[in-house]
């Protein structure tokens, strides 16, 4: 065994550049086949088991329209609202229970000057003077918007009143929007009270549906613990109607831009989440979206290559397969013919032809196996999806490559006579 290793290492030194080139080819072959494997496997995200939220990974969706000019430019596009509505719908459809939206956007309420309201003011905990926080006549109060999945997943406990129902998340013209109030609101409102508000500058009539138990918290990417005691909890509304006027359109756009910046809660691998998001992006024609927590250079690379197109990948990997096999057989047959002298020394030292063949075979195993192993480890690290299936496919590719590229050499070995080998080594 050690002998074989030694001979392989010595032999590798002999035509090292050619060997290195082949190793690179084989690496690319394994890489393209890994990508091809990914395009063919549609592992559906297993719907979440009822795991406690904290045990799941969460990824924050974040639109790329960070700069204001970019954002404004997008809003000005005539169909931008349809695009983001569609994007949102696809998000919900694709991610289902995994998609949680919890956003922190104040609601403006006329509260008057009574200091009992101060603690509800947006920014109160940040320590700025109260006067600066107050606006007239409407004052911004702390509020979160949460989607139905989020409401269920965080399972917000109530001290009285009713939780949201599914239809509460759909806006109905002329009807009050139900809200849940934090525990500290309890002295000031009762279930059934109506409140006149503005949300994103649009008038909304709210109706108190219930009160949240004290010390209840939720979280998102910005707040690891967001206590709801001083918050108004509002359903993340969906607007099925198209906007009536320009102001309404602007409202819906901003509202939906917020909606799509949600979170994905899942126990799936980053690759799966990334892939699902890519599909949502593609289906909606909205690509300015990132997934914070599931982005890496390697994954970026994977998706940029997969986007190229499947046919090209197929052609590339089959071409590479042929090229690799050709180069390996050429390398080995060349080495075989270069090496009559060394082989005859081994033979007269007591080796058999089978042993000599095993050195060559071990070299092929090495040249193919090492890149294969590297790519397999990379796959495990970066993607780690259907690893068993993937390993199986790799083993098949590996065996096939080794077998086919060893055939010409095997043929050479079987037809060579020791006498002519000795003759040619003289």
């Amino acid at each position, binding site marked *: 065994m050690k*002998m074989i290793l030694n001979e392989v290492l*010595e032999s590798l*030194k*002999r035509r090292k550049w050619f060997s290195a080139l082949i190793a690179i080819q084989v690496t690319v072959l394994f890489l393209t086949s890994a990508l091809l494997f990914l395009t063919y496997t549609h592992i559906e995200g297993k719907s979440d088991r009822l795991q406690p939220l904290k045990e799941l990974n969460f990824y924050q969706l974040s639109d790329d329209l960070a700069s204001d000019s970019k954002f404004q430019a997008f809003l000005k596009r005539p169909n931008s609202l349809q695009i983001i509505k569609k994007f949102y719908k696809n998000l919900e459809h694709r991610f289902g229970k995994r998609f949680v939206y919890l956003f922190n956007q104040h609601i403006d309420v006329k509260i008057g000057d009574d200091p009992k309201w101060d603690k509800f003011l947006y920014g109160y905990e940040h320590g700025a003077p109260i006067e600066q926080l107050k606006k007239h006549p409407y004052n911004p109060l702390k509020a979160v918007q949460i989607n139905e999945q989020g409401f269920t997943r965080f399972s917000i406990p109530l001290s009285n009143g009713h939780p949201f129902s599914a239809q509460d998340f759909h806006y109905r013209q002329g009807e009050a929007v139900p809200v849940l109030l934090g525990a500290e609101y309890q002295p000031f409102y009762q279930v059934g009270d109506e409140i006149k508000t503005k949300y994103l500058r649009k008038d909304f009539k709210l109706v108190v549906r219930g009160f949240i138990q004290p010390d209840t918290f939720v979280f998102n990417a910005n707040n690891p613990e967001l206590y709801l005691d001083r918050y108004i909890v509002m359903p993340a509304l969906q607007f099925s109607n198209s906007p009536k006027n320009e102001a309404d359109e602007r409202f819906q756009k901003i509202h939906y831009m917020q909606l799509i910046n949600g979170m994905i809660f899942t126990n799936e691998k980053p690759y799966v989440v990334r892939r699902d998001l890519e599909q949502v992006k593609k289906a909606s024609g909205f690509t300015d979206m990132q997934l914070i927590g599931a982005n890496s250079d390697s994954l970026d690379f994977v998706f940029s290559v997969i986007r190229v197109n499947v046919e090209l990948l197929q052609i590339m990997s089959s071409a590479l397969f042929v090229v690799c096999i050709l180069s390996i057989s050429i390398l080995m047959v060349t080495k075989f013919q270069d090496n009559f*002298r*060394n082989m*005859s*020394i*081994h*033979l*007269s*030292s*007591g*080796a*058999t*032809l*089978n*042993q000599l063949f095993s050195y060559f075979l071990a070299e092929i195993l090495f040249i193919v196996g090492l890149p294969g192993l590297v790519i397999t480890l990379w796959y495990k690290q970066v993607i780690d999806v259907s690893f068993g299936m993937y390993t199986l496919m790799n083993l098949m590719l590996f065996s096939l490559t080794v077998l086919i590229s060893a055939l010409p050499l095997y043929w050479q070995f079987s037809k060579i006579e*020791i*006498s002519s080998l*000795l*003759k040619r*080594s*003289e």
Partner: protein
Amino acid sequence: MITLKDLTKSYRSGERKIDVLKELDLEIEQGDMLAIMGRSGSGKSTLLNILAGLDTPDSGTYRYHQTYVSEMNGNERAKFRRQNIGFIVQNYALVDSKNVFENIALPLRYSKLSKKEIKNKVEHMLMELNITKLKHKAVDTLSGGEMQRVAIARALIQDPALILADEPTGSLDVQTESEILDIFTKLNQQGKTLVIVTHDQVVADHCHNTYYMQDGMVTPVAS
């Protein structure tokens, strides 16, 4: 020790069939030191390769002590080579990717010896042939005489009873040639049997018997 009987061997190159050995008979006594001379292409190397168990005759028998080498398969012949044969060729055939130590140790790699045993054996052999200082050198830095000593060391490392040398002094100067011949004579005195193929009368003169090879057969040359 060795009996060759009716040994034939022919090669086919394209249309032509070359009969190299034609019913060759030869007896070699244990402890002999034997020279084989003859024209280039007369079949000397072929004969030596068959004696070494590297090549096989088309027909005839090769008996080594009580065993018939001509009946053996490839693996058995490899084992036979390991146990009985030391083979030295003209162009100091050394593996150029290995250093002196590894070249000498090569036959031991095909037997089941421990690292320590291998080291001891090689070092002993280096001492015997006066080349201890070459131990770690790359073979392409050696002189012709040094290379041939290394090749001899490798041939002797398994302590074979039969040493076969194919023109071992063919490309050496007179001084070095005589040193190598001294080694051969010493080996013979230690009881080894030597068969040396040579063009050189000086070499033949050092041997006990000389055969001349012609027309696929060997005939003794009267001394």
